[in-house]
């Protein structure tokens, strides 16, 4: 048996040949076991490494909802990834500000995306990633708008030993009890949103108020409602008079809204997301609820304002990951906005910003590690270094792989106050992330192994 340790191509082909031939014999050979002897490198193969990293391109599997309740948000965050890939491949200046070692591509290899429609269903996303891994040896997975997808992909990534960057994911569980060694999350989430917006609400509305919650029935909904409720009751003396839990994709919120209307609440905290948020807010207005109570959106939704329309969000407080008018404070944001507008014709929402950030960070970590070998990249993240992002300096916590980053508090503008077509929100505050987060083990995070 010849050893050609320094020539990945030969070994890949050989291994592929060997695999195809014996694949049918019942997998009697341990996966990769045969190859372990053939490939005299520093590490045994793991996941899709080194196969996936051996060509001139590396593949990224993106499973994003392009149909269904979160379709609009999915399309937006997809654009963020696409822009990031374009910039990384060409070695754009913006990327280099975040990942200084990047020249063209990642470690000289061009990024190619495999995009599938997950419809916000975990099963579809996992199957899509499975295909990408088996056929294209994808070395990176990303995509989610629903935390159910993020959690499922977390587990899948850990099993397959391929890195996963969560897309939009608001549930505490993603870097909480469902955290994994192979998963990373950049964006803000229920706990940080609650702790950022909580003080604002207590200050603006006062103490000992009554709150009604509307919650979508899945992990993101339940954990976010819990975090917000915990803060408001503990720190503001508020009481929750009702929590209306609706199924994801509900169309008619009348029953829930009637319960809310009769609850005697002062504030309506709407945790619903995507189209559910749009419909529930529009219908709430028609039931006279928005005249009786103040609306709060603790976890902002991209494009909520234009979709809801009719000035319904004027004066409404929300917590978000990013709003484009932050460009006045952050030069990288300004550059990002300019590039995004140039390519897509509108200002980016926070889904796109989250996507761009996470890819830029990953490119940096791979360059730092000097290889695509997953444990090395993971350890690069876990160094916890302070690194730049579109909203200032951030770092990743080694214990749960959650990015420590600021939460932006915004307030909706009345139509008459809008200075241009896209001026929906006014940035009230940019709250630093570290004090908002729970202790790393507070939510039961127990990441798995490196290999």
């Amino acid at each position, binding site marked *: 048996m010849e050893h050609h340790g320094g020539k990945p191509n030969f070994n890949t082909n050989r291994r592929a040949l060997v695999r195809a031939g014996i694949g049918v014999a019942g997998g009697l050979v341990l996966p990769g076991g045969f190859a372990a002897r053939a490939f005299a490198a520093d590490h045994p193969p793991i996941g899709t490494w080194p196969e996936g990293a051996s060509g001139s391109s590396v593949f990224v599997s993106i499973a994003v909802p392009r149909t269904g309740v979160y379709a609009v948000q999915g399309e937006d965050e997809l654009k963020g990834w696409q822009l990031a890939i374009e910039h990384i491949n060409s070695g754009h200046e913006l990327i280099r500000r975040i990942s200084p070692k990047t020249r063209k591509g990642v470690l000289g290899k061009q990024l190619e995306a495999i995009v599938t429609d997950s419809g916000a269903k975990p099963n579809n996303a996992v199957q899509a990633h499975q295909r990408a891994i088996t056929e294209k040896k994808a070395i990176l997975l990303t995509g989610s708008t629903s935390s159910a997808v993020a959690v499922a992909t977390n587990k899948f990534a850990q099993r397959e030993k391929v890195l996963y960057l969560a897309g939009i994911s608001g549930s505490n569980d993603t870097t909480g009890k469902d955290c994994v060694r192979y998963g990373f999350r950049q964006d803000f989430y229920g706990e940080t949103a609650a702790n950022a917006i909580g003080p604002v609400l207590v200050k603006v509305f006062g103490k000992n108020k009554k709150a009604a919650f509307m919650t979508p029935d899945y992990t993101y909904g339940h954990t976010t409602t819990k975090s917000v409720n915990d803060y408001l009751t503990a720190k503001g003396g508020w009481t929750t008079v009702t929590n*209306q839990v609706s199924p994801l*994709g509900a*169309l*008619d919120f009348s*029953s829930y809204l*009637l319960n809310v209307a009769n609850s005697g609440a002062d504030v309506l905290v709407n945790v619903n997301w995507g*189209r559910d948020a749009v*419909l529930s807010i529009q*219908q709430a207005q*028609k039931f006279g609820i928005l005249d009786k109570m103040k609306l709060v959106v603790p976890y902002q939704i991209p494009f909520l304002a234009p979709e809801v329309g009719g000035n319904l969000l004027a004066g409404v407080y929300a917590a978000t990951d990013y709003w484009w008018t932050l460009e006045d404070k952050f030069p990288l944001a300004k550059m990002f906005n300019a590039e995004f507008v140039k390519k897509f014709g509108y200002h980016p929402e926070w889904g796109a910003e989250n996507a761009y950030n996470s890819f830029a960070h990953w490119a940096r970590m791979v360059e730092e590690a000097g290889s695509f070998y997953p444990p090395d990249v993971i350890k690069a993240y876990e160094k916890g270094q302070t690194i730049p992002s579109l909203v200032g300096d951030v770092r990743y916590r080694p214990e749960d792989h959650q990015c420590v980053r600021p939460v932006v508090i915004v307030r909706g503008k009345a139509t008459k106050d809008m200075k241009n077509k896209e001026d929906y929100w006014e940035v009230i505050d940019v709250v630093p992330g570290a004090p908002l987060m729970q202790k790393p083990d507070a939510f039961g995070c127990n990441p798995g192994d490196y290999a």
Partner: protein
Amino acid sequence: MITWSNFVAQLFNGLALGALLALISSGLTIIYGSLGVLNLAHGAMFTLGGYAGLAAYQATGSFAVAVLAGAAALFGFGVALERLIIRHFYARPHEDQLLVTFGLAIVIVEVVRWAFSSESQSVAAPRLFSGITNMGFMLYPTYRLTVVVICAVALLALFLVLYKTRLGMIVRAGIEDATMVDSLGINVGRVFMVVFGVGAMAAGFAGIINAPIVSLTPDVGEAILVQAFVVVVIGGVGSFPGAVLGGLIAGEIISLTSMVNPAYAYIMLFAVMTLVLMMRPRGLLGVKGRD
């Protein structure tokens, strides 16, 4: 949150939900009763009516035109479907009818998705009806009230056609015994065409008038289909009064259960349906002759 005012509010809202369901389900029940065809494309017709109305609305800006367009388009569509496809399935086993309507449902929804995209589209209610009505015990969207009235009128119209016209009598006779009607020399083929058209029209009409309430997406019809079948089964297959009664009951079940625990609302509907079937095998007002 069981307060008196909440109870009354939900009771009323249940009426609104029920009225719409009654309209949709009557279309389904007369199709099944007369033709013996389980129209699994009924939900898709609801969707299609909504979008046909949307197209008319975008072209003319008038809601009234949109409603008429939606109804007319679906009547024509139903007639065409019966002539071109459904007709050839009467002799085939029941399952084949189910399968072809199932397939048609997919095709219709996907055509709509292809033509209009998956994003939700809104249709604005006419200005006159778009405010909030203070009903004393609660504030209720004016448009939903309007829908209740519209549904009641539509159901009345359907009732008059079924019970006061010759065509209606033939349809009702055909529900009881199609062979007999045929042997009396009546052109059953034409009757079936009209029945399918009317049934589709009821669904399409409901689709467009419901659009301002929930906005339109290609998937609106999915949940409606299952609910309509539950209503038809509760009320009794082939029975128009059964569909109305069943619809109202279903609406009330959904909203009253929501008062206590919204998560259980739809399950309660299924539980009631199963209970009804166990006790009265033909539904509440089921007509003998169709199984």
